[in-house]
C-alpha cells in the first residue's frame, strides 16, 4: 500500500510531477509557489529530469514551448503576475498544439497585489488569457491530494489532446499541509507516442516536422481554428469533472472551486445542522465547465450562491449555465482575503429568509 505523507500542496504537486515522468521543469521564483521550484531543484536531477531556473517567466514559458515540441513531459509553474507574463507563450503553445503542464498558484491582484491567496485569475485561465481563440484544460484541485492527483491527470490529458493543461490553484492550497497518497502510476503505460509530430530530428526518408503558429493564409488559419474548436468541443463533451456534495435533496446549492469550495463545504455542513437543505457543486474542471450538470440541478433547486475569492468571475459561467432558471447570487472576498464559513452561512441564511418572505406574501 502506498504510504500516507503529510505534505504542502506545492510539494505534493512537485513530487507527483516527478512520479508522472516529468522530463524538464523551467521556472522563475515567485511567492507563494517557490517551494515547487525549490523541491524540484533538489529532487528532479536525481530522478532523471532536467531543471532550470530561468531569468523570467517569459523565458520559462518559451523554454517549455521548446521542450514540449520534443514530445517529452514538461512543465512550468508560477503565480499570478508571472502567469500574466506567460500569456503570449501559451498562445503559441495552444496554436502549435503542444502538450505541457502549467501551474498558477494564484495570489491576490491586480498588479503586484499581495502574496496572500486569491482566485482572481479565473477569466484569464478559462477564457484563453493570451491573444487568439484558444483554450486550455483547467483543473482546480480542492485538496493537497488533488494537487497531486491532477498532475497525473493533467499530463495524461495534455498528451491525449495535445493541449496545454493548467492547474489553477491558490497560495493557501499551495502552502497548507494535508495527507497525500501517491498512486501507483506506470509511466510507460501512460506515455503517448508523439513521434508523428515531435521535432526530434528528421528521420531519413520521412517528412520534416515543423512546430509553428504562423499561418499567413487566412483560409488555412481558419481551418486551424476550426480544428482547435472541434477539439475543444470534444473536451467539453468528455472531460467535465466535478464533485457534488449533498445535492440530491438540496433546494439550494453553493457553487465554488478550490479553496473557496472547501470553506463553502464547511458552511453547508453548518447549514445542514440548522436544518437547511443545502448542497455544494465543486467544479474540478473549470474548462470544460460543468454547465449541463448545473443546468440540470437548476431544475431542482430554488437558488444558487457562487462563492469565489474574486469580484465574481466564475459566477458568469454559472449564470450562462443555468440560463435564468433560478436566481444566482454571488459572495466574494478579494485582495487575498478568504471568506470564513460563517460569512457564507450568512449568505445562505439570507437566501432562506428571503424565500420565507416570498412564500409568506
Amino acid at each position, binding site marked *: 500500500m502506498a504510504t*500516507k505523507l*503529510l505534505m504542502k500542496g506545492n510539494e505534493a504537486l512537485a513530487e507527483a510531477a516527478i512520479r508522472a515522468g516529468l522530463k524538464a521543469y523551467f521556472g522563475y521564483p515567485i*511567492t*507563494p509557489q517557490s517551494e515547487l521550484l525549490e523541491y524540484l531543484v533538489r529532487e528532479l536531477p536525481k530522478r532523471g529530469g532536467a531543471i532550470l531556473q530561468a531569468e523570467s517567466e517569459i523565458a520559462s514559458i518559451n523554454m517549455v514551448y521548446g521542450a514540449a515540441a520534443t514530445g517529452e513531459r514538461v512543465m512550468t509553474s508560477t503565480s499570478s503576475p508571472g502567469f500574466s507574463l506567460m500569456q503570449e507563450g501559451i498562445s503559441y503553445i495552444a496554436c502549435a498544439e503542444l502538450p505541457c503542464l502549467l501551474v498558477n498558484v494564484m495570489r491576490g491582484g491586480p498588479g503586484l497585489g*499581495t*502574496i*496572500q491567496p486569491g482566485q482572481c485569475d479565473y477569466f484569464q485561465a478559462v477564457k484563453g488569457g493570451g491573444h487568439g481563440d484558444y483554450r486550455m484544460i483547467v483543473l482546480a484541485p480542492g485538496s493537497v491530494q488533488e494537487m497531486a492527483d491532477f498532475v497525473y491527470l493533467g499530463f495524461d490529458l495534455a498528451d491525449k489532446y495535445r493541449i496545454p493543461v493548467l492547474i489553477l490553484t491558490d*497560495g*493557501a492550497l499551495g*502552502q*497548507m*499541509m*494535508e*495527507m497525500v497518497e501517491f498512486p501507483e502510476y506506470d509511466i510507460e503505460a501512460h506515455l503517448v507516442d508523439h513521434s508523428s509530430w515531435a521535432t526530434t530530428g528528421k528521420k531519413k526518408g520521412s517528412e520534416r516536422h515543423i512546430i509553428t503558429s504562423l499561418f499567413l493564409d487566412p483560409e488555412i488559419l481558419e481551418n486551424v481554428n476550426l480544428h482547435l474548436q472541434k477539439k475543444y468541443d470534444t473536451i467539453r463533451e468528455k472531460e467535465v469533472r466535478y464533485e457534488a456534495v449533498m445535492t440530491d435533496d438540496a433546494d439550494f446549492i453553493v457553487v465554488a472551486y478550490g*479553496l473557496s469550495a*472547501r*470553506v463553502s*463545504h*464547511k*458552511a453547508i*455542513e453548518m447549514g445542514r445542522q440548522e436544518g437547511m437543505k443545502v448542497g455544494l457543486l465543486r467544479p474540478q474542471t473549470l474548462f470544460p465547465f460543468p454547465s449541463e450538470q448545473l443546468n440540470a440541478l437548476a431544475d431542482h433547486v430554488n437558488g444558487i450562491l457562487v462563492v469565489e475569492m474574486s469580484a465574481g468571475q466564475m459566477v458568469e459561467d454559472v449564470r450562462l449555465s443555468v440560463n435564468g432558471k433560478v436566481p444566482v447570487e454571488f459572495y466574494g472576498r478579494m485582495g487575498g482575503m*478568504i*471568506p*470564513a*464559513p*460563517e460569512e457564507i452561512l450568512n449568505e445562505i441564511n439570507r437566501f432562506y429568509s428571503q424565500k420565507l418572505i416570498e412564500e409568506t406574501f
Partner: protein
Amino acid sequence: MTNEIKIAGFGGQGVLSMGMTLAYAGVFEGKQVVWMPSYGPEMRGGTANCTVIISNDRISSPIINQFDMAIILNQPSLDKFENTVKPMGQIFYESNNVINPPTREDVSVFEVPAALEAVNLKNAKGMNMIMLGAFLEKNPIVSIDSILKALKKVLPERHHHLISANEKALKRGMELLQNPVLS
C-alpha cells in the same frame, strides 16, 4: 471528533514546527489532519501562526475563524487570537512572553512557564515542545509515541540527535500541568 487548534507566536519560536509535529502525529494515528501556516512578510515582521485541525472525519474547511484551543507564545498573538477561542475552549499561554494574561472567563486558561523551564532544561529551543507537552497533558488527542515519530519526520536528519532532548521537554511540559497529588 474534531479538534481545531491555533498556535501563534514570534517567528523563530518553533510555532510552525510545533503545529506540524502535532499534525504529523495525527497522521500516525490514522486521523485526518490539516496544517495551515501564515506565510509571507508577516513572518519576517515577527509573528507566525498556524492552524492545525485533527479529525476522525473528512475535514472540510482548512480556513476557520474559531478554535477549540489556542497555544499562544507571545502577547501580540494573544491579543489577536484570544477572542477566536470558542466558549468552553482552552488557552495555553507561555507566561514569560505574555504580560497581560487572558481575561476570558468562559474558557479554561493554562499558564505554562515554558521559557523558564526550557532554560532549566538547558534546552532553550525546547520551549515549543514544553508547550506541546502541556497541551497534550490536557488534550491527549495523540500519544507521545506518535509525537516522537512525528519529530523524526519534521526535523531534518541532522537534527535527529535532538529528539531525546525534545522528549524530555515534552514530558516536562506534561508534568507542569499534571494535577498535584493531594495529600
